[in-house]
């Protein structure tokens, strides 16, 4: 299978050696997986969502399993951007892959401050902006639900960083392509989708929601057709590259996302079940291309639209 297929993907000034990234919140700070995965073989990895200051997260229970999926309400527990740079990034020096920071805030100013701080760090290749969070100034409405807020947020972040800005979209909206267009016109370099889908599980014995947070985000194999459909819709409406995420657990589904319009893909929950899955998926994509005589991955992006 050592065919000469070209897996590289270009996004702005960045060259990814293959289209496989790992999703924020499912891959820790990378180091946790170095026992299982040669990190240099990945296209890149996206670290756990960072906020300006440390966040303790929600009370447990935080997770519950569902058929071929899981709900989580972690509450973005993280050590804060400064400690991330001081304590975690030094351990990631010398890697030959892209490290992408995922950032989260409750005010535009918080996002902007984080983007300024991370812009200075040469180890970070790009920023992924998690807009699935409440905007405190706007009465708690999710940033990601309102195209105007996504626009303002993206413009503000673009002003303070030269690194590529990826806007990570929430699927909990009526028309995701409309939000993607707002991100594009604000100058976003790419969009990634989907984040988790809001759901609830009830514990019938206690007659209460199972999760302490009541609702949680659904992820895992169960959600992949929704993600593929949304990537398909967004591809029809925007020109900037799309990063596909949601339920990918094998090369077949990764390829479905790519054919629907994704230039890169992210693997999330599947890392929990098999920590080596990202590498297997890279191999699987390569095998498919060899079998189907496709010399470059770029030739598969969006082919279902032809």
């Amino acid at each position, binding site marked *: 299978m050592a065919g000469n297929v070209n897996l590289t993907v270009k996004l702005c000034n960045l060259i990814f050696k293959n289209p496989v990234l790992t999703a924020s*919140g*499912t*891959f*820790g700070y990378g180091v*946790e*997986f170095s026992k299982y995965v040669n990190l240099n073989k990945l296209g890149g990895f996206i670290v*756990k969502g960072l906020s300006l200051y440390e966040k*303790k*997260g929600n*009370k*447990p*229970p*935080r*997770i*519950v*399993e569902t*058929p*071929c*999926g*899981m709900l*989580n309400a*972690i509450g973005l*527990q993280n050590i804060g951007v400064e400690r991330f740079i001081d304590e975690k990034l030094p351990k990631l020096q010398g890697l030959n892959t892209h490290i992408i920071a995922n950032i989260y805030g409750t005010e535009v100013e918080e996002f902007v401050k984080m983007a300024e701080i991370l812009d200075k760090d040469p180890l970070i290749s790009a920023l992924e902006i998690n807009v699935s969070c409440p905007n405190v100034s706007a009465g708690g409405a999710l940033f990601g639900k309102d195209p105007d807020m996504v626009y303002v947020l993206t413009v503000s972040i673009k002003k303070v960083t030269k690194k590529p800005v990826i806007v990570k979209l929430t699927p909990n909206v009526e028309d995701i392509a409309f939000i993607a267009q707002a991100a594009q016109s604000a100058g976003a370099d790419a969009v990634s989708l989907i984040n988790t889908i809001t759901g609830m599980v009830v514990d019938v014995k206690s007659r209460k929601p199972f999760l302490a947070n009541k609702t949680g985000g659904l992820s*895992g*194999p169960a959600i992949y057709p929704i993600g593929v459909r949304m990537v398909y819709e967004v591809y029809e409406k925007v020109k900037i590259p799309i990063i596909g995420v949601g339920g990918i*657990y094998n090369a077949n589904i990764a390829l479905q996302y790519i054919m629907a319009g994704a230039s890169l893909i992210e693997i999330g*929950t599947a*890392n*929990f*079940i098999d*920590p080596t899955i990202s590498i297997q998926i890279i191999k699987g994509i390569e095998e498919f291309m060899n079998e189907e005589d496709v010399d470059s991955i770029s030739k598969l992006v969006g082919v279902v639209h032809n």
Partner: protein
Amino acid sequence: MRLKIVEKRQVAKDTYVLKVENPALFDILPGQFFMIRINDFNYPLLRRPLSVAGFSNTIDFIFKVVGEGTKILSLKKEGEFIDFLGSFGNGFTINSSKRLVLIGGGIGVAPLLYLKDTIENGYKLKCESYFGFNTKSEVFTSSGNVSTMDGSLGFKGTAVEMIQGDLDKNSLIYACGPLPMLKKLALLCFEYGCEMQVSLEARMACGIGVCLGCVVPTVNGDFKRVCVEGPVFDYEEIQWQEM
């Protein structure tokens, strides 16, 4: 790591012993656990944590059927292979200058059996053990002092009631079992000034510290991960009122 089932046997009501071949690649501390993939396909999706109950030429587990995952596991046959990840977690630490007291409730006795074996046969130290069950049909060990709630075997009452009056400052308790039992023990430890290492459970997705799903509240208002900072905690670290 795919390991072959050498033995699978029912040992009590809804309770099974599972022994898999030991690849002899690593040591395992008592209290550590493995993440077990129930099926090779995606249902059930998440791996299930099981503590090591014995470690020799086989790695042994004792599990109770409580839901779909453990039900499927109970139907596996000898000779089949199961996918394991681990071992994970910190494990119990042994202090030879103390009076070592093992207190287990129900399936929580499983990891204590490996601890007992390690203390007695590895460290050549003495320990006392008090294992409580609901009723005779659920008892899966003949080791230690056994109690049952209905008195159908051994002492009538809980494991805690068996030992309660006899704890002192020099006792180091190793505990695993249902939450109400652990809370009761935490209160007793405060009262008698004894130490306790307690093994806690939480729903887990990854087992390797990245999903942050398995946390428990600690006294300083923080959370700690059961899979990495646990499953064994010093009882004084835990915010028991919030458990």
